[in-house]
């Protein structure tokens, strides 16, 4: 009985942590990819824009550089046409996820 309870406890632990953690790690990765994909219309799939396409290329930036620029657009410190307007629509946490996803590793 005792061990059955223990088994139940372990199973629920596995479900709540180990198993669902593995699941949620993959799911979280997918959420992050889809958030970064909101930028792809203008800056290319996975941040790889059309070369000489006329749109500023972002795939030479590190994650850190990208986040600094996104935050500067959001605060108004950096001027631009569309980016200051778009950056204001994302939370700081979302901007960080985007910079981590798209920045050069």
């Amino acid at each position, binding site marked *: 009985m005792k061990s059955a309870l223990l088994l139940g406890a372990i199973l629920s632990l596995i479900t709540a942590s180990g198993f669902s953690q593995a699941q949620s790690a993959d799911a979280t990765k997918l959420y992050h990819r*889809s958030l970064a994909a909101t930028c792809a219309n203008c800056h290319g799939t996975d941040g790889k824009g*059309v070369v000489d396409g006329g749109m500023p290329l972002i795939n030479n930036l590190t994650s850190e550089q990208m986040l600094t620029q996104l935050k500067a657009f959001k605060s108004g410190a950096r001027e631009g046409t569309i980016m200051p307007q778009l950056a204001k629509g994302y939370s700081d946490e979302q901007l960080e996820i985007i910079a981590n996803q798209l920045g050069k590793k």
Partner: protein
Amino acid sequence: MDRRHFIGQSAAALGMLAGFSGQARANLQKAEILVIGGGYGGATAAKYLRLFSNNTAKVTLIEPNASFVSCPLSNLVVGGSRTISEITSPYDNLSKRHGVKIIQDSVTSIDPVKKTVKLASGKTLPYDKAIVSPGVALMMNSIEGLAQANKAGVTLQAWKAGPETVALHKQLASMRDGGTFAISIPEAPYRCPPGPYERACQVANYLKQNKTKSKVLILDANQDVTSKGALFKKVWAEQYSGIIEYLPKHNVTAVDAKTKTLKFEVQDDIKADVLNLLPAMSAGEIAVKTGLANSNGRWVNVNFLNFESTAQKDIHVLGDSIQIAPAMPKSGHMANQHAKVAAAAIVAELSGWDVNPAPVLTNTCYSFVNEREVVHVASVHQYNTAEKTFKTVPGSGGLSPAPSTLEGVYAWGWAHNIWADSLG
């Protein structure tokens, strides 16, 4: 229970869990996903289903056209500063680079109970998930005489880019100097809010250079310009003074093809030389026919977390066909964004994961006011859990202060990048 037995049971239980996870993954690999319509919504969904599933999902795209012709920038073809080949892209990269199976055909019916679709060629295909992105249908019967006039080529819509886009430019080019080009706009919502006003600018730009005695008449069923109003009006006054005439609250109700006369609800008849009549619009025909258009029989209500139709399970609807969230435009940019939310949700569902509870959408829309200068409107839409819809973020988005050539460069850049993102 001894220790060995306990470990055995735990292992079995773990195996069960692993089995469950394997099963979910197997669902992702086994499921037949059919994408109906290879426009901005459908093409993007097909590609991103492959990307987000690490190339494991089985994705088939059904599209009747041999290549993709972009509506964005098609107004430049009407105005004559660009050609149709410059806005045409092939479909084959979706199969070559991303493993999407492409069938060049059109869907004639969907059976949501048997979960099958029928093609014009007669074939029937089964699906586990269907993505429907057929764009808009033009409600030709909303203007008396329009269906016949359009069939005869007396009026043109050119609102689905392709042969009519080229034909409209030809009509403009062969119009007598001193003639009138009339464009009529239905009540919102319709595909691309600023599109008709951009078109008026492109036609006026052509007339300014080629037929200086001619003019453009904008007959708008709406109370006022529906998008970028102040910017367009300033351009009309400064660049096209005496060329563009704007008449709000002018709802075309009938057309006489013989005399090229337009009739209205209230106002006197108007005659014009070139008639670019845009009727009211609804969700694409296949969506309406399948019973998906449960918003006034015109647009499709969806669950904004996964873009599943509220009328039928496992049919996800994207792009212009949906009943929009507040301040969400019917644009190509937005259709591409819908597609990514839906693709991620479908991959999650088939993997046995929770669907992302906080998706985000953006929109940017550029309008050319001549062949080089552009104005934009932009917005960011975050999912609101309490209201189960997308809401624009206060303080985000906005308009250009004035037309600029820099934005002209970005507009072409946007087009090339979105074509590559959706089809490349």
